[in-house]
């Protein structure tokens, strides 16, 4: 029988003392399939310190029938150029799980000088040797069997597995899962707290249902609500549904670090096996990798944590939000949020709530699953990872969970092996220490960033990018561990600016250059195909593919400098960055020497920004083309630059911190967009006013190109603040109460406020998990003690601490921006003199209380110059003002005096 399937997951089992590989996938018809392959054995290599016969004897004596075969082979070592292959031993075992034991024995007994590929996971060993890549399509030919151990619809023992072409994905089933627990306060404890509800959302529908909620207590049932008498029966039903629906993807929001570990624990407590996967011999695997972070695996299925994907997008700057809760992300991405139920009330509603309240809770729970599923599907979050899997070979779950190095090494294993090279093992602790020491002594010079010419540019700036700079460097200069010269040769070598030699491609073409060349060329081919493609779905998939190819090609840049990498060579990493530095600096000199009106104002790694004299954007593009040609002619095709865009206005504050309005030309049409790097416009500890002010300031500078308007705007905001005209809503700062009060160390504003509210209005007290809104009011105590409930502030008419909002909220983000355009902070405060912040207020107070100048003070809060009103928190030694030499006095609530008389 022949079956065509898209590969989702793989593992192996020991059957009759030998390993059998299991490949899990989906057919075009939507059936789940498991393809078994027998007869493949684990192996690894080493350079022996003795003869093959001696080694075989020692190994067989120690391990008996575990050792199947000991062969003598010849392979190339990967690190350092050697003309000839090296004699090695290849040892085959019967049991993959015993490879570490044998490896350690060989090392301990000094049977080897070097060991290779003795830490490759068996499934990936198999996949590399059979040229099998995650998420690609394969045809398996073999015999269909039945077994109760495997739960897929079809099970085949294959004789042959061959790849087949396929761009479109199989019709995957997606299940979104969310749980609610009985935890009343603090973090849910999987040992004590129970699951009270499990919400499931399906795509496609399950038995005509798009969602179901399993509820762990008797309540009013509904069509899509299933009632259970207890947690155990609810968990049993979950297993039945999963078996019956047989999803390929299980998605959730923070499912990795909360729902799945919690579920696993509850299965244990209820003495149920957590068999959520496609085989009965492997339960849900949940491993803690860090405080509050887990990795999970469900055999045969792929777990997608939408929260983790969103966070990755945030790190790349593709999405910027203050908070990344499901509610915030849902509203932002698809215009829908959670059902409003206070998290801290869930336990109470569950215990004491009436029918209606419980129904609302059920809908709250259901919405979480539905919302996550919608975000996953509508935003098409998984496709780019699927393409990455197809390129690098890793299974999709590992593409989601592992870092860039794992993806690269999967590709390296295949390509190096194909060409007769073997990879070293991952470094052990001793090797890691050696590498870290080397980095300290030799240093690792990162990518070059040119010193920016800080300021606001209102004339066009041409932004040019080096096309695939680092992959091109690998290719042009044949940089690879396999071409790295480790002896004294001088002939037929290329010397990097760092002074490291690589053999010329005529002697040996490096493996990494070949890989990156393939990736770049393939990407170019896909992009051409995209231009011709009319079908939107195919175009979308092609786009995901070319993005994945770009990501893989660029990922090689940092790999040789990655201390945990198999092919770590510091000299290579430094060579690559030295070439990058060379290109950037050479290009700058070339541009500026070609035309006096071309000025390079910034350059970072593989891009430069050139100020040009142009009267229009179109003219700037023409000049940019000129620059492009000049540079490309100079490099004679070895390196290419391309205009990315022209900034019609550009603000640069510091290295890696700039913003501008970029104009791109797409098919003759101009497309404008705001580009920001290293400048946050949202932060979770900012109030609404800060975000507004920052956005507005950037707008004035970049769109209106007016520094004066920006200054006047900030002055007006400060004035409004001082006059109490700013809406209190805009001053609210929000922080989550993430743990019990006594677990907080130190003094925090929202915690102090909750303590106050506990005494004042216990019925309104926020609970753990709730968000606390507060504003900072005026007063003598520490800022943290002056956090107040906005409602209370309005009720009691309390004064806002305008100094705090000016100094700690508004000024910090915009100060740097104004400094970059040559504006000192003093300009922002009224009369342009270098006065301190609150002098405006004091001046006003001072002038109001001139007649009461000689009032007796019983206390003081700071000092003030009686002539110019400047406020001091520390008295100058001379007791006179630095600015105007006026006499300084004590100040308290606007009144001033040169003497303080405290009452007894």
């Amino acid at each position, binding site marked *: 029988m022949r079956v065509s399937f898209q590969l989702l997951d793989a593992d192996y089992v020991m059957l009759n003392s030998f390993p059998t590989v299991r490949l899990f996938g989906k057919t075009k018809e939507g059936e789940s399939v498991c393809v078994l392959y027998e007869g493949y054995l684990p192996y690894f290599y080493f350079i022996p310190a003795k003869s093959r016969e001696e080694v075989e004897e020692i190994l067989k004596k120690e391990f008996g029938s575990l050792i199947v075969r000991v062969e003598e082979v010849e392979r190339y070592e990967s690190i350092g150029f050697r003309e000839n292959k090296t004699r090695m031993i290849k040892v085959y075992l019967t049991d993959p799980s015993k490879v570490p034991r044998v490896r350690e024995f060989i090392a301990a007994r000094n049977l080897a000088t070097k060991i290779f590929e003795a830490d490759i996971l068996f499934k990936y060993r198999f996949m590399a040797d059979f040229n099998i890549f995650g998420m690609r399509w394969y045809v398996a030919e073999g015999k269909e069997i039945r077994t109760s151990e495997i739960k897929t619809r079809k099970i085949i023992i294959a004789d042959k597995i061959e790849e087949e072409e396929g761009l479109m994905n199989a019709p995957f089933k997606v299940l979104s899962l969310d749980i609610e627990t009985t935890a009343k306060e603090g973090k849910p404890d999987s040992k004590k707290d129970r699951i009270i509800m499990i919400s499931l959302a399906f795509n496609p529908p399950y038995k005509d249902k798009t969602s179901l909620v399993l509820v762990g207590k008797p309540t009013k049932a509904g069509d899509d609500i299933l009632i259970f008498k207890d947690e155990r029966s609810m968990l049993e039903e979950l297993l039945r549904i999963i078996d019956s629906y047989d999803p390929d993807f299980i998605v959730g929001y923070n499912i990795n670090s909360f729902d799945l570990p919690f579920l696993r624990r509850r299965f244990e407590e209820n003495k149920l096996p957590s068999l959520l996967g496609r085989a009965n011999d492997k339960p849900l695997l949940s491993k803690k990798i860090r405080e509050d972070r887990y990795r999970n695996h469900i055999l045969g299925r792929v777990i997608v944590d939408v929260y983790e994907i969103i966070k990755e997008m945030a790190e790349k700057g593709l999405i910027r939000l203050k908070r990344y809760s499901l509610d915030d992300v849902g509203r932002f991405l698809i215009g829908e949020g959670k059902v409003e139920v206070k998290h801290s009330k869930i336990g109470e509603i569950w215990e004491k709530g009436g029918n209606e309240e419980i129904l609302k809770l059920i809908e709250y729970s259901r919405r979480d699953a539905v919302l996550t599923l919608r975000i996953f599907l509508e935003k098409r979050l998984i496709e780019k990872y699927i393409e990455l899997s197809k390129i690098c070979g890793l299974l999709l779950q590992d593409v989601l969970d592992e870092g860039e190095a794992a993806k690269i090494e999967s590709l390296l294993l295949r390509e190096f092996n194909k060409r007769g090279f073997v990879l070293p093992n991952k470094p052990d602790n001793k090797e890691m220490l050696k590498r870290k020491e080397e980095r300290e002594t030799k240093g690792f010079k990162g990518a070059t960033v040119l010193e920016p010419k800080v300021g606001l540019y209102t004339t066009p700036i041409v932004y040019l990018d080096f096309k695939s700079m680092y992959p091109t460097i690998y290719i042009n200069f044949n940089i690879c561990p396999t071409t790295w010269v480790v002896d004294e040769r001088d002939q037929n070598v290329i010397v990097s600016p760092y002074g490291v030699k690589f053999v010329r491609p005529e002697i040996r073409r490096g493996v990494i250059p070949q890989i990156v060349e393939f990736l770049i060329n393939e990407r170019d081919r896909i992009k051409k195909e995209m231009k011709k493609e009319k079908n939107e779905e195919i175009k979308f998939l092609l786009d995901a593919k070319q993005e994945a190819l770009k990501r893989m090609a660029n990922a090689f840049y940092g790999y040789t400098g990655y201390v945990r990498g198999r092919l770590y060579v510091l000299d290579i990493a430094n060579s690559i960055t030295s070439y990058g530095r060379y290109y950037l600096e050479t290009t700058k000199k070339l541009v500026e020497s070609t035309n006096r009106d071309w000025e390079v104002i910034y350059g970072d790694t593989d891009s430069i920004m050139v100020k040009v004299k142009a009267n229009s954007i179109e003219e700037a593009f023409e000049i940019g083309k000129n620059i492009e040609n000049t540079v490309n002619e100079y490099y004679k095709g070895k390196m290419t630059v391309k205009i990315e865009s022209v900034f019609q206005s550009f603000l640069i504050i510091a290295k890696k911190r700039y913003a501008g309005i970029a104009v791109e030309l797409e098919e003759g049409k101009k497309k404008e967009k705001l580009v920001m790097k290293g400048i946050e416009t949202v932060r979770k500890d900012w109030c609404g006013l800060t975000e507004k002010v920052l956005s507005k300031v950037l707008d004035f500078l970049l769109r209106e190109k007016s520094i004066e308007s920006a200054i006047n705007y900030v002055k007006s905001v400060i004035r409004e603040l001082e006059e109490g005209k700013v809406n209190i809503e805009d001053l609210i700062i929000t922080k989550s109460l993430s743990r019990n009060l006594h677990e907080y160390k130190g*003094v925090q504003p929202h915690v102090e406020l909750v303590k106050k509210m506990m005494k004042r209005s216990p019925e309104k007290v926020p609970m753990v998990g709730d968000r606390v809104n507060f504003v900072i009011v005026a007063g003598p105590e520490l800022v943290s003690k002056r956090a107040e409930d906005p409602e209370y502030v309005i009720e009691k008419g309390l004064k806002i601490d305008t100094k705090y909002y000016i100094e700690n909220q508004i000024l*910090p983000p915009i100060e740097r921006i104004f400094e970059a355009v040559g504006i000192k902070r003093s300009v922002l405060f009224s009369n342009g003199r270098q006065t301190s912040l609150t002098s405006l207020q004091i001046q006003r107070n001072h002038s109001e209380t001139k007649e009461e100048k000689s009032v007796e003070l019983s206390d003081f809060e700071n000092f003030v110059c009686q002539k110019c009103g400047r406020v001091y928190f520390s008295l100058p030694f001379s007791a006179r003002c630095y600015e105007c030499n006026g006499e300084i006095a004590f100040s308290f609530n606007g009144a001033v005096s040169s003497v303080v008389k405290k009452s007894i």
Partner: protein
Amino acid sequence: MEKLEIVKLFLSNGLQLTPQVLERLFQNQEIIDKILEFAKQRGAIIIDENLLEECLRDLKMETRLEIKVVYPEEIREFSVEDVARVLKERFNILSTILQENNKLQNLTSLSRVKRLKKGEEATVIGMIKDKTTYSVSIEDFTSHETIQLDAKVVEKLFYDDVVAIKMRREDEKLVGDKIFYPSLSFFRRQTLPESEVIVSHSEIKVGKEVFELAENEVARVYIGGFKLFIINSKVIEKYTREDEKSIDVLISLIERRHLNPSFFLSRKLYKKDLFLLDEIPDTLIVTHAAEPLYKPYKGINIFFLPEGREVRVKEKRIE
């Protein structure tokens, strides 16, 4: 006799005294001659407490252990000039300590800093007079200047701190690279009282003697040569920011050699500034603490004492 005179007397006889012995002799001057003779007979060079005890046992004598509690005396009516004087005194004392405890290179006064050329470095000592997000203004007796610093560094500085700043001229700006505090030597040894001292919020017990402790922001207790300082946790809270632990804040205040540096926060003027660590305590107890804690730091035994508990100083325990 003053202490200096006692030291000179022993030195002229080729003898040195440990600080504890000096204190005891100062308080019990009637035994000075006898100790002098005893030590000469023994051929001793240094007189430490062991030798002192031996001598006393030999002579069948006892010394009085004087216990003194010093409270701050507040000045209730003060002028701006009074405050300036106190700050200048503080600057004098702490700048001397700064220079003694740190290897400061290229030390110069703030008035000369204007002459620094681009790229030139210097170190200055000053009192913090003003702060912005990225800079501080400092003053010495010659001038005042503004120095650019990293925002995180500025955050940790308090008004009226006396610090040294290593800095350089960068175009129009002065850019600070490193901050030095007056600090304590690493080589201080721990000193414990001879007999157990038990301290609670309301009293101190030294052997069989009990002394009432009045509620104050700060107090110093001298038990013979042993120094025990007490400070109310409310003082430390004034300087504690979000996510900071009180012990870390206290240690940073100790390093500044002033437990309540910002005058506008303390708002009280005292005849003698007991917060200024011109003397280093052997033990420092923070009263009204939220949680009990013991931590030795550069020879000082630090205790955080909640209400209702007591410190056993010699045993280094909180009960």
